[in-house]
C-alpha cells in the first residue's frame, strides 16, 4: 500500500514537474546578470575563464561560504567521529598498492597544483585541483595507514589557507576598497600571472579544499 502510494506520488511528481518545466524558457535564459558579466569580466577581472571571475570575484563571498561549509563539515565530522576513539587499522596495504601510490603521489600533486594554478585560465580551479591534491594524500594514506599526516598539519593547512583567503579580502578592505575587491595588476588576459589576486585566492581555495577533503576522508577511514 505504502509502496504503491509512493510510486504514484513519485510518478505524479514527475508528471507535474515536467509540466512545469515545459513552460521554462529553456535555452533562452534571460541572462540579466550573465550578459553584463560576460561583457565586463575580461576587462574588469582579467581572467580568461569567466566562470572563475564569477566564482572568485563577483561571487567571491559565496566561495568563502563554500569553504566555510567544507570546513564546517570537516569540523563537525571531527566532532562526531572524535568521540569514537580511533581504532588502529591492522596492517599495511600490499606491495603493489604501496608502490602504485608512491608513483602516483608526485604525479597527482603536480596535476593538482596545475589545475589549481590555471583555474583562472582554463576549466578547473581550486576546487577541482584541491580534490586531486586530497586524492594524492589519501592514496598514500591508504597505502600506509600508519604514516598518516597528523591532524595538526591538516588543520594548520586548512586554517591558514582559509585565513589567507579572508586575509586577501580584508587587505582590500584595509586598503579602502570593498571586501574581496580584486587586488594587484590584472596583467594580460590568458597569461598565468594575470587576473590580479585571483590565482592567489584559488591557491588558498585549492589548499583548503585539499586539506579539508583529506581530513574528512581520513577521519571517515578511521
Amino acid at each position: 500500500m505504502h509502496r504503491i502510494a509512493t510510486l504514484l506520488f513519485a510518478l505524479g511528481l514527475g508528471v507535474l514537474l515536467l509540466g512545469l518545466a515545459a513552460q521554462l524558457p529553456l535555452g533562452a535564459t534571460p541572462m540579466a546578470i550573465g550578459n553584463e558579466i560576460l561583457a565586463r569580466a575580461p576587462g574588469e577581472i582579467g581572467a580568461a575563464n569567466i566562470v572563475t571571475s564569477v566564482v572568485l570575484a563577483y561571487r567571491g563571498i559565496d566561495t568563502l561560504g563554500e569553504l566555510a561549509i567544507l570546513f564546517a563539515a570537516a569540523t563537525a565530522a571531527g566532532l562526531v567521529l572524535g568521540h569514537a576513539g580511533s581504532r588502529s587499522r591492522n596492517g599495511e596495504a600490499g606491495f603493489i598498492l604501496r608502490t602504485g601510490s608512491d608513483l602516483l603521489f608526485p604525479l597527482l600533486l603536480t596535476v593538482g597544483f596545475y589545475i589549481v594554478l590555471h583555474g583562472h585560465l582554463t576549466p578547473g580551479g581550486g576546487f577541482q585541483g584541491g580534490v586531486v591534491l586530497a586524492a594524492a594524500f589519501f592514496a598514500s594514506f591508504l597505502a600506509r595507514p600508519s604514516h598518516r599526516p597528523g591532524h595538526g598539519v591538516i588543520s594548520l593547512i586548512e586554517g591558514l589557507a582559509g585565513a589567507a583567503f579572508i586575509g586577501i579580502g580584508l587587505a582590500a578592505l584595509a586598503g579602502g576598497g570593498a571586501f574581496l575587491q580584486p587586488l594587484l595588476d590584472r596583467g594580460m588576459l590568458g597569461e598565468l600571472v594575470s587576473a590580479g589576486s585571483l590565482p592567489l585566492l584559488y591557491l588558498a581555495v585549492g589548499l583548503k579544499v585539499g586539506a579539508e577533503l583529506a581530513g574528512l576522508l581520513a577521519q571517515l577511514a578511521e
Partner: protein
Amino acid sequence: MNALVLPVVLPLLTAFLLQPAGRLSAALARWAGPAVLLVCAGLLVQIALLTGGEPVTAAIGGFAPPVGIVFYADALALLMAIAVPVSALLLWPRAEAGEAGVRQSALMLLLVGSGTGMALSGDLFNLYVFYELLTVASFGLASATGTGRAYVATVRYVLVSGFGSLIALAGIALLYAQTGSLNLAQLADLAPERLANPLGLAAFACLLIGFGVKAELFPVNNWVPDLYACAGKPISALLAGVVSKLAVLVLLRLTVLVFDSPEAREMLMVLGLAGLVTGELAAWRARDLPRLLAYSSIGQLGLLFVALSLPGPAGLAAALAVALHHLLVKPALFMLAERWHGSLDKLAGAGRASPLAAGLFTLFALSLVGVPPLPGFWAKLLVLLELARGAGPFDLTALALVLAVTVVEAHYLFRLVGILYSPGEFRDRHSPRALAVAGLGGAVLVAAMLTLPAVSDALAGLASQAADTAAYRTLTLGGGL
C-alpha cells in the same frame, strides 16, 4: 558601508584559525570565540548607531549590484544581525575540554558568521550558501551531546535539510531560468512581468520549502522535536530562537520583495496554519518538556507564517511582533528546560525547588498564550486584527484556528505550570547561567510591556521600512554605496 562585511567574515576567520590557535594556547581557543562575537556585536551596534536605522548597502568586492553580491542593512536586518552574536554569546555551549571544545567553538563561530550573513545578504544564492553553512554548522552542534539518539535525530535533520536544500536549489534554478538574476532587488523589479505565473509560484513554493526547514515550516519540520529533545538545550534555544527567525527573515524578504502575490500569501498561510495546528496539538500530548517546547515552537512559528502571509506594513508589523516575541521567549524557555529535563509528570515540586525559574516559566507561558498586557497578547492581537481585516474565507478560517489553538496552548502550558507548583520531590539541575539567560529574557519581556508605546512605534517603523520595496530597490540598484 563596507564594514558591514566584517561581522560576517571575522567569525569565519576566527573559526578557521581556532584549531591551530588551540595548539598554542587552550585559553586562547576558549576565549577567542566569545571575544570575537563581542567585537562583532559591538561593530553591528556601532553601524546601527552610525546609520541611525536608515538602510545602507555594501557591495562585496566593489562590484555594483546586481552583478556583484550586495549586503543590505536596514533596521530589521541589523536587529536580526545583532541578535545573532548576542544570542550566541548568551547560549555559548558549555566549554568542553580539548579538541571537541575547540571544534564546537569553531562551529559556533561559523554559525554566527553565516547567521549574520543571512541577515544582511541581498542575493538569493548567497543567502542559500549562508543558509547551508548555518545548517552544516548546526548539524555538528546538534550532535555534540554525543548520544546515540542525538545522532539519529541529527541524521533525520540532515535528511530533511538535504531535501530542503535540493528543493531550494531547484527553486533557484527555476527563478534563474526565468529572470536570469539572483539579486533580490533586481528580482523585485523583474517579478511582475516574469514571475507572475505558475512557474514563479512554483519557484516560491520551492524556496519556501527549502528555507522553511530551519524556519520549522510545516511539511519540513519533522526533524524539530527529536532534535530539540536530544541536542543540548543551548543549541535548541539557538535554533528555535534566532536561527529560525533568520530563515523567516529570508522568507520575509522573498515575500515582500519578490513574491508579493495573493497566491503566494495563501500558500504561506495554509502551511503556517498546518504547522500551527499540528504543532500545538502535538505539544498538547507531549510528555516531556523539551519536546513540548519543540512542538509549541512549531506551533508559534506556524502563527508567525500566518502573520507573514498578511499583506501590507500592518501585516508585517504583526509578523515582526510575533517573531520578536518568539525570539525572546523560546530560548528562555529552552534554557529553563535545561534545569528541568525529563518527563512532565516528574516535574512536580520544581516550583518549590526554584521559585524564580517557575515564576519565569509562568510569565513566559502567560505571554505565549497571549494574556494582556504582556507583549505576547499585543502580538497576537495584531495578527488577529489583520486576519479580520482580510475577512476572506481563508482569513476567517485562520482566525478561528488561531483562536482555537490558543485554547489548546493554554491548556498544556498551564497543565505544566500546575505540575510545577504541585508538591513533589523534584531536584533541578543547578544551572545559574540558564536561569540568568531566562531571567534576562523575562526582564526584556517585562521592559517591553512597560514601554509598550515606544516598542510599538519602533515596531511600526521597522515594519514600514521593511515593507518599503521601492527604497530597497533604489538603494540597492541605484548603486548607493
